């Protein structure tokens, strides 16, 4: 049994998993420490309040509120669970977007812009095709695909700038993000999609249900009553699996990864590196936009159109999702769900304690920071194992092959 276990830990994938889990634990611990320090420094927060905050950070998803006596109650909360899956949908997609680009050697910080472009085109298409003529399911499909296409084109832009003009894709992505934010605001401002019917709130676009378009629930609402969950999560999981197959089992995926490892060597081997850079950014853009489409086509979400001063956090959070999953598309499913769980935890903290939801962003940032030196953590894990073997007097196994993803995949 022990031998089996150590063989498992010698595996590359297992070490990556362990490093990610370690990052999560450290991230949560850092969040708890911040909560504790603030609790001690702030006279308005009692030690009991701080302890409640810490417990919510670790298990907020299982919180069911407070009982009559004022203490926290715990248990299976179908609303939280369902909302977690619903919010995970766009996160998985933006995470996939960043992961695919990262495998191809590009750091896609442009996910927010691609997400916004997808949002805009999806909403415009879904609201402008009359459902009296075209069946709603078909409108849904057209809107989804149109959104993806818009995202792909927007994503291809920094790709083109990188491939042909040698502009750093990080900088190009940041600029296109803000250009997208302004464009979206501009086009919605002159459009007639602004919600003027419900006068209680201003600045929002119509929900897609206004035109009778909404993602099918597929029975998930029965499983998680009271939540917003719908079939989108299943589409996201299917797309993640499709990306896994594309990256690992096809020639195209191999070429993209080859470009990511060493662009010049790939070109020497006859791979069209410029085409692949543009293509991988286009795929990444389409994935981000698909996340936006799935989120806003759900029918119960509204888009605040005057967005020129802020970029959607969902786009940026694709980065920690991808990093936590070590850019593995299957891993992205789980890390996406984990990130949305943190979202729910943040809401519970705001609702139930004196703390607010921004602490979860601190936790996420810590996890990203740790994943920056994931390689070191992995070396530490394998180093400890080797030392223990040497002490046991056994002949050490040949060291696990050095992982190239963390090192070779980094953008120049």
């Amino acid at each position, binding site marked *: 049994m022990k031998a089996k276990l150590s063989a498992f830990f010698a595996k590359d994938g297992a070490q990556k998993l362990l490093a990610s889990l370690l990052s999560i634990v450290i991230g949560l611990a850092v969040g708890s420490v*911040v909560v504790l320090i603030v609790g001690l420094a702030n006279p308005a927060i009692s030690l009991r309040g701080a302890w409640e905050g810490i417990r919510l950070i670790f298990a907020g998803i299982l919180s069911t509120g407070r009982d009559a006596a004022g203490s926290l109650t715990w248990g299976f909360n179908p609303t939280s669970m369902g909302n977690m899956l619903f919010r995970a949908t766009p996160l998985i997609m933006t995470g996939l977007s960043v992961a695919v680009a990262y495998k191809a050697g590009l750091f896609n910080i442009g996910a927010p812009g691609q997400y916004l472009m997808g949002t805009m085109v999806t909403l415009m298409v879904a609201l402008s095709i009359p459902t009296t003529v075209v069946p709603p399911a078909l409108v849904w499909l057209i809107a989804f695909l149109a959104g993806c296409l818009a995202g792909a084109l927007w994503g291809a832009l920094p790709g083109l*700038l990188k491939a042909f003009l040698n502009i750093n894709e990080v*900088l190009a992505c940041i*600029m296109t993000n803000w250009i997208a934010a302004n*464009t979206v605001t*501009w086009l919605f401002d*002159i459009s007639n999609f602004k919600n003027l019917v419900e006068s209680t709130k201003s600045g929002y676009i119509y929900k897609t249900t206004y035109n009778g378009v909404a993602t099918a629930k597929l029975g998930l609402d029965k499983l998680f009553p009271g939540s917003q969950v719908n079939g989108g999560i299943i589409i996201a999981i299917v797309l993640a699996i499709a990306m896994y197959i594309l990256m690992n089992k096809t020639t195209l995926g191999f070429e993209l990864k080859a470009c990511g490892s060493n662009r010049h060597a790939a070109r020497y081997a006859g791979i069209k590196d410029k085409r692949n850079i543009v293509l991988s950014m286009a795929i990444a853009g389409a994935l981000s936009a698909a996340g936006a489409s799935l989120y806003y086509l759900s029918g119960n979400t509204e888009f605040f159109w005057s967005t020129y001063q802020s970029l959607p956090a969902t786009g940026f959070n694709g980065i920690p999702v991808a990093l936590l999953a070590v850019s593995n598309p299957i891993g992205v499913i789980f890390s996406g769900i984990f990130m949305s769980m943190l979202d729910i935890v943040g809401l519970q903290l705001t609702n139930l304690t004196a703390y607010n939801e921004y602490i979860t962003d601190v936790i996420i*940032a810590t996890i990203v920071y740790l994943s920056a030196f994931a390689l070191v953590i992995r070396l530490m894990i394998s180093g400890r194992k080797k030392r223990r073997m040497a002490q046991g007097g056994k002949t050490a196994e040949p060291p696990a092959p050095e992982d190239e993803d963390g090192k070779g995949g980094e953008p120049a």
Partner: protein
Amino acid sequence: MTFLIQQTLLYAVPLMIVALAGVFSERSGIINLALEGIMIFGAFVGVLFVHVMQTAGVFDEAKAAGDWIALQGFELLAMLAAAVMGAVFSLLLSFASINLRADQTIGGTALNMLAPALVLFLVRIIANQNTLQMATGDAASWFMIKKTTLGYSRTDDLGFLGNTFLHKVYLATYVCIILFIILSIILYKTRFGLRLRSCGENPQAADSLGINVYKMRYAGVTISGALAGMGGFVYALTSANCTSNGDVAGFGFLALAVMIFGNWKPLNIAGASLLFGLFKCVAAAYSSIDINGDGVYLLAQAGISSHFYRMLPYLITLIVLAFTSKKSRAPKAEGIPYDKSSR
């Protein structure tokens, strides 16, 4: 014209000093993508310092007596606090990228996410809202230098230069310009500057000549953090009325673009940041700009959407980068963790 120059300087000076922050880091071989995050953190620390000092009433007497020299000292102290904490915050980046040889892009991104999260978390607890403001008064009444503060009467005409550079200005702007000049000279004309730059070009060669690459890189990133933190506070003071809300409107990233456009050279950066300051100014105040003073607001009457003006700085950045990036010469060793054993 006076208005245009003053507004342009307000935007250009933080950009300039933060872009120089980028230069110090990148010339030592570390990509500092975290400029935005450090600015946000510096702005928060500076504003918090002002807030705490005001609550404690330390400068109340000086304010009541109209002792503007003491108030300017208060402003300089806040800048210093922001710089020190910016430097401390940047240690997170240097530790990860120098000692742990981490991916610098990801490390910078982490700091960019950490800063607004931490700042908003604390601001919400301190101020019970999403913006931390000064405890009393506003930036203009406490820190702005006006004709009257300098002893002139309201009706005196100081001439074009006097009106532009002595009336309704902040001392911080000039401090930044002087610092910019001093630091540029240090970077190019001193032994320390030469050593710093050599670590960004060929660290192995530098090491073989007895230069401690790790120390130099720590120095580069720490100076960078101090400048970016101070720049963040200067931005908050001059453009955001001394408030902190976990946002500096993408100035850190614009500064990165300015740095690349300026080819990592201080003089070019000064020019580039003036250009960007002008576009930022046009974007922010196009409707009230009267270029030749004849009462015709040309830009507002041109019939171009305000959205277009807001987009302009970013669009121009991309276009300018498209034309200059072929020639751009980044420090050779930037982004590569230094490993003594590799060749």
